[in-house]
């Protein structure tokens, strides 16, 4: 019996207006990206509370990706500018606590950038795979 290699689990928060449509476009264009990425649609990237990210790790994610409109293109004008500041500080803090910084990423993906979405997810999955399972922010009660 062949033992299947465990794929990393990625949670991707995608904003409703750009990145979610971008991910949809990637599918429409038949672009390949790993099936282990779970897309969570949020109204705006600034809806992502730091708790969401930590929760995702708790529930078994090995990496968390946040995708939003390009700065300046936010549907709500300024939402992603706040995301940018918050995530900069949060990721810096996670690194300070000794959590690998490759496990978190923010990427700006517009509705027309299906290819960028697929490429981002491919790269990110590869980076997280290299790190292996998330051990430093795991909650064993949530593991199968």
């Amino acid at each position, binding site marked *: 019996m062949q033992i299947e290699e465990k794929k990393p689990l990625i949670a991707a928060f995608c904003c409703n207006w750009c990145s979610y449509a971008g991910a949809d476009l990637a599918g429409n264009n038949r672009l390949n990206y790993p099936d282990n990425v779970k897309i969570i649609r949020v109204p705006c990237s600034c809806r992502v509370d730091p*708790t969401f990210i930590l929760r995702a790790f*708790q529930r078994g994610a090995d990496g968390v990706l946040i995708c939003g409109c390009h700065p300046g293109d936010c549907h709500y004008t300024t939402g992603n500018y706040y995301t940018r*500041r918050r995530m*900069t500080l*949060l990721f810096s803090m996670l690194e300070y*606590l*000794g959590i690998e910084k490759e496990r978190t*990423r*923010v990427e700006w993906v517009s509705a027309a950038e299906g290819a960028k979405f697929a490429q981002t997810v491919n790269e990110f999955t590869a980076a997280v795979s290299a790190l292996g399972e998330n051990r430093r922010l795991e909650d064993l009660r949530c593991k199968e």
Partner: protein
Amino acid sequence: MQRINRSELIKAAAKLIESGEADRVLGWKKGEFDYDVTPYVFNSIDEIEKDFVWGDFCGANFSKYLIKETAKSDKKVAVFLKPCDTYSFNQLLIEHRFEREKVCVIGVSCSGMADIRKIKDTAGEGIAKIEEQDGYLNVFTLYDGIVKIDSKDALAERCLCCTKRCVVYDELLGDGENKADNDRFAKVEELEELTEEQRYAFWKSELSKCIRCNACRDVCPACTCEKCVFDDPRSVLENKAAANEFEEKLYHIIRAFHVAGRCTDCGECSRVCPQNIPLHLLNRKFIKDINAFYGQYQAGEKAGQRAPLVDYTTEDREP
């Protein structure tokens, strides 16, 4: 050793009560021991003369108490604020947590507060009395007689690098300035230089001491939400000890993040922590990053300034 003495503080408070400007005073009251000074609302001059204390253990920051205290009556409340407390006071005014008109602020110069834990490390348990004399603390212990400690060695962590001055007051006692020359980010930088594994191990050992008493949250002048995520039963981490490492981290990251950009670095969180976790190192990391990424910023320094996390520029750095 405090430069201002107790009688000057009492005189200032008595004047406000006598003139009818304020009808009560928020100050420090003598506790069971010399070192466990407690916040108290004094209602008369007699009470103040009897129980009011001012000394090296008056660390408590009264800014947060004003939210509830000012709501109690239409009369003004007088309050003693040390230089670091005035920043928290300003920050709360920026956030519209109470009305400035309902408070008489007596700014008090402070030469740094003593940390009882440092004293206990040297003198041991069983401290009956602590007196100060010529820059030394005479600690009267039950078992080892009198132990003499240099006041500088007993200074609280936060006072070692305090350069704050009274930024808001109606009356000022002393010059209201502090000039410590230690770098407050030294320890943060030291941690940043460690490897990922070492940092992880450091924080694991520190945060695993947490008993989730919520003291750091309750005392924090920036934590003033009426509803807190940590009290919400749906959050799964309401008022209970952390079940595992993840919950410890979740609590402390969220607590520090929530006050990022609003934290004035008053150091109350570390002071009240019964487990002696250096919580200020989490707050200072955020302050250091904010200074590096978005320009020098001191929360509470000026009335009306915008906190960095509710502000942005189009040229901000990418995460």
